[in-house]
């Protein structure tokens, strides 16, 4: 008869020498791990609660401007370098690591309307309401600049915005028309126009670099291909758009900040219908920016709040506001997509975390693993009401809260009306098949 029983020696099970690392025994048999799901749920609940406890998104403010900040831009290669232009014609360069100012220059008379770094990062181009475009040289290694202007381009009208093509010496400005400039030429190479209204914003597609999007004051978003001499497509929306942004990862996706308090994402291959409508703001949206990962959009609004939308959800993930922050005219993701800058009317640039509960500084490997695990279980149980309310609840200013309530009521009333009409007329509710409500017309 062969007999064997379990017999363990403590030395072998733990450590043989005092200097050894203690052995950790694992047995994944589910019977040894009862209540696995409930325990995971409790962990997820704790993680979501902790997230809210540690949610301190505001990092600091960059103060120094003496007027409202109208435009901001990030440096193409230096992560902590950001430029901002204010309404009194001052341009400032900032160091984000120390939250201090690098340089100040009185660049224009009147508004600085547009700012952009050249792709090589050695120059900066600015345009203003004084009908000039100025190119500034940055001094390495500090990336500061002195008062010296490399070149000045004179236009016929005031400029409203500027953007640089990402791989050449071409840049575009908007004003009465869209003008394409080259560094070496003092006059525009190309002038593009469709209709007679002023163009307020112009943006180059970062992937399809010849594509250009612009928005006008008469509710149009016009797409140009600068290889041709004529515009490509026009989209007319129900209210005017304040800003456009291209998705940095998908060349065909365009986001529009609209006056009707929503942010829209369009697929430019089919402009008849918006891909996504992000509707959480209660004031007109003034500026938007894609995160460099292309998964999130940040928007600044006239209701004095900043919201972050995941690209595939209509609801905002996060809302930022402070007591003293005024109307937000420009927002910007940093190139590592970890921070958000907001430039507002109250002469401050504020720096926020993109993920409100993220820890700053370098994480150890174990911390990283733990956070990854927590993210996963939060994702797993996110639809459970208890977790959902904790995760999504945000305190907002009373004004915003009230306005949202009214907005909801209006929305509900509209839905009710459609339902009633269809109930009483015996017809199915009328759906506009070609265009959604906010898209009025598409011209080719």
């Amino acid at each position: 008869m062969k007999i064997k029983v379990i017999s363990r020696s403590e030395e072998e099970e733990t450590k043989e020498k005092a200097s050894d690392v203690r052995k950790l025994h694992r047995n994944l048999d589910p019977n040894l791990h009862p209540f696995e799901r409930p325990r995971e749920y409790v962990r997820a609940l704790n993680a979501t609660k902790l997230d809210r406890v540690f949610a301190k998104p505001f990092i600091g403010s960059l103060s120094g401007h003496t007027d409202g900040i109208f435009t901001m831009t990030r440096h193409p290669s230096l992560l902590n370098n950001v430029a901002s232009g204010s309404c009194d014609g001052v341009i400032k360069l900032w160091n984000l690591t120390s939250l201090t100012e690098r340089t100040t220059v009185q660049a224009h008379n009147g508004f600085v309307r547009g700012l952009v770094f050249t792709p090589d990062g050695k120059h900066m181009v600015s345009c203003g309401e004084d009908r000039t475009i100025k190119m500034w040289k940055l001094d390495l290694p500090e990336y500061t600049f002195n008062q010296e202007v490399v070149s000045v381009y004179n236009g016929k009208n005031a400029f409203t915005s500027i953007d640089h093509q990402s791989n050449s010496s071409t840049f575009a400005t908007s004003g009465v028309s869209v003008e394409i400039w080259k560094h070496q030429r003092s006059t525009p190479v190309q002038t593009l126009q469709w209709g007679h209204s002023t163009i307020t914003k112009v943006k180059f597609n970062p992937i399809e670099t010849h594509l250009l999007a612009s928005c006008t004051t008469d509710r149009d978003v016009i797409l140009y291909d600068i290889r041709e001499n004529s515009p490509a497509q026009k989209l007319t929306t129900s209210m005017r758009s304040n800003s456009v942004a291209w998705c940095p990862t998908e060349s065909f996706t365009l986001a529009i900040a609209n006056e009707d308090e929503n942010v829209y994402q369009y697929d430019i291959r089919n402009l008849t219908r918006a891909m996504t409508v992000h509707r959480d703001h209660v004031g007109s949206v003034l500026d938007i920016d894609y995160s460099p990962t292309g998964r999130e959009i940040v928007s600044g609004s006239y209701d004095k709040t900043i919201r972050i939308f995941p690209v595939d959800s209509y609801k905002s993930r996060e809302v930022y506001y402070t007591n003293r922050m005024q109307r937000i005219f420009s927002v910007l993701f940093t190139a590592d997509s970890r921070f958000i800058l907001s430039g507002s009317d109250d002469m401050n640039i504020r720096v926020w975390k993109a993920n409100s509960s993220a820890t700053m500084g370098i994480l150890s490997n174990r911390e990283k693993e733990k956070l990854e695990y927590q993210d996963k279980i939060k994702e797993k149980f996110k639809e459970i009401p208890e977790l959902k309310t904790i995760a999504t609840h945000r305190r907002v200013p009373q004004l915003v809260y009230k306005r949202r309530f009214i907005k909801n009521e209006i929305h509900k009333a509209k839905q009710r009306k459609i339902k009633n009409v269809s109930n009483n007329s015996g017809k199915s509710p009328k759906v506009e098949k070609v265009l959604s409500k906010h898209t009025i017309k598409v011209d080719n």
Partner: protein
Amino acid sequence: MAKDLKPINNNKQKTSNIETNNKNKNFNKNQTVDKHWKNAREFNDDNDDDEDDDDEKEEKTNKQPTKNVNKKNNDSDDDDDDNESEDDKGDKSLKKRKISEFENDKEDEEESDKEDEQTTFESNKPTINGKPIKVPKGARKYLKGEIVAPTGIKNPYMKTKINKIGELKLESAKAAQKMEMLLQHDVGFIVPENDREKTYKLTQNMIASKVDIQSSAKVFDLALEPNGPYKFQYSKNGRYLLLAGASGHFSMIDWQRGKKFTERHLGSPIRDAVFLQNETMFALAQKKYTYIYNQDGVEMHWLKDHYDPKFLDYLPYHFLLVSATNKGKLIYEDISVGQKVVESFYHGPLSAMCKNPQNGVMNLGFSTGIVQMWIPKSRNPIVKIHCHKSPITSMAVSLSGNHLVTSGLDGMIKIFDLRNTYEEMHSFATRFTPNAISLSDTNVLAVAGDKKTFIWKNPFDTSIKEPYLVHQNPSYARNVQFCPFEDVLGIGTESGFSSILVPGSGIANYDSMEADPFASKKMKREQDIKALLEKIPHDMITLDPNVIGTIQQDVKTDENKHRRQDKPRVDRNRQFDPKKLEEIKQKNKERKEKLESEILNPSSNKSALSRFERK
């Protein structure tokens, strides 16, 4: 013995023939009981003659119903010669069918897995991206919930998402199965060299002589003479032993090292004893109240609410100390906050209590032969099973939480399926009154009678007819429990405590994150804190704990998602008072309006700086 066995073996064949003949009909329970009865007799005391006579009588009476069938068999014997082989096949298939019922048990893993692929999966046909899922052999037990096919979902995004979840589930199950390679230890066993060697003939001395010295030291008797009978409990990791004598003597020891932590005599009777979260604290059900002691034997808490307690148990993941009192109260005390969480009331004389380790449901056994299942959330038992016609003496639930084993004063041991039917799977009789039963983590069943303790290797398998081991108790046994992660069975007797070796009764590989017999002080501390952080709320105890956060499979459309699954029964004759209805509507309307107006026109204006003001 071997000679004696022969005729019975023949008999066995006959009965199996009968079974095959009756295959299409329902299983005749009497027959199976009868079969086991005989076998039980085989291994029982031969020296008590009085009972033998009764036996014979009973055998006769029991045989009567089978006789007719036997005759039939004999009549058609000549014809049946050819059919015998077929019968045998039928017998095998019958066996297989029977075995397949115990999918989750380790012993039957391989066969059941084969069957899984063949039968259950073909019938359900869950698919990932249109391909049928094949769960590899042995990985099935690691699968966390069923893989759900995205049937009825039109949204392509959701469809791919659900497919992806299924893929990940399968992948993780496969990965977990691969981890089995890293397991260091094998389970214990007794392998007879030929058919004539019977494991039940082994005595503890023989076993101890054939194992290593360290293991042979685990066979011992503690003579604690005047204080018995003893109740005892092993700690979760198997290292510590809490002994409590009915007269008031208790002791907590590290039994493997022979280190005593505390020993006291209280002077008042102790009815039950349990360890709490770890060995640093334990609770004793004394004559009047439940008390909590620390490992030095110092009384720490006096639980006044637990008046006249009879049974104690502890739910480690919920931090709940459960005591059932003689006054009909079932009390859940949260020991992490020191509050009574729930108090429910049961009726009838309680005779046994045990917990289901997988879902935290408390099973209460009564003298009426009924087993009730209680959860803190419900005021009434959620399940009632009529198990025995006589009082229930003891109960045990398997580690997988799938089987409930009960023993009655009538000498019957019954096994119930806890997965969905709550029906008896099979039963067998003992010749004595089973005082206590215990199921080990590997599903070895110990049945303690007064004089002997019988150990059955796989009690869920109907084809097993011989006990695994038989142990002669030093005195009347009152309590048995297997030690976790060891091949050891503890027996609490009238005269003390005895520990015996049962090879194959323990899980060989423990998990340090759950219970580590060699845990250091630091590890224990860390585990305590982690356990506290992960304390499951008491109201999450349900029959199926793994439902939370899963996908509901029957949902077809969005509307159905919000519809109640079982329609509420409406009494058609019920008369509504229109006035009252109007009142309720009016009230609701007013409340809603008030809420809305409060939001739109708040009564008190708050300034923006109000949160900075001191109150």
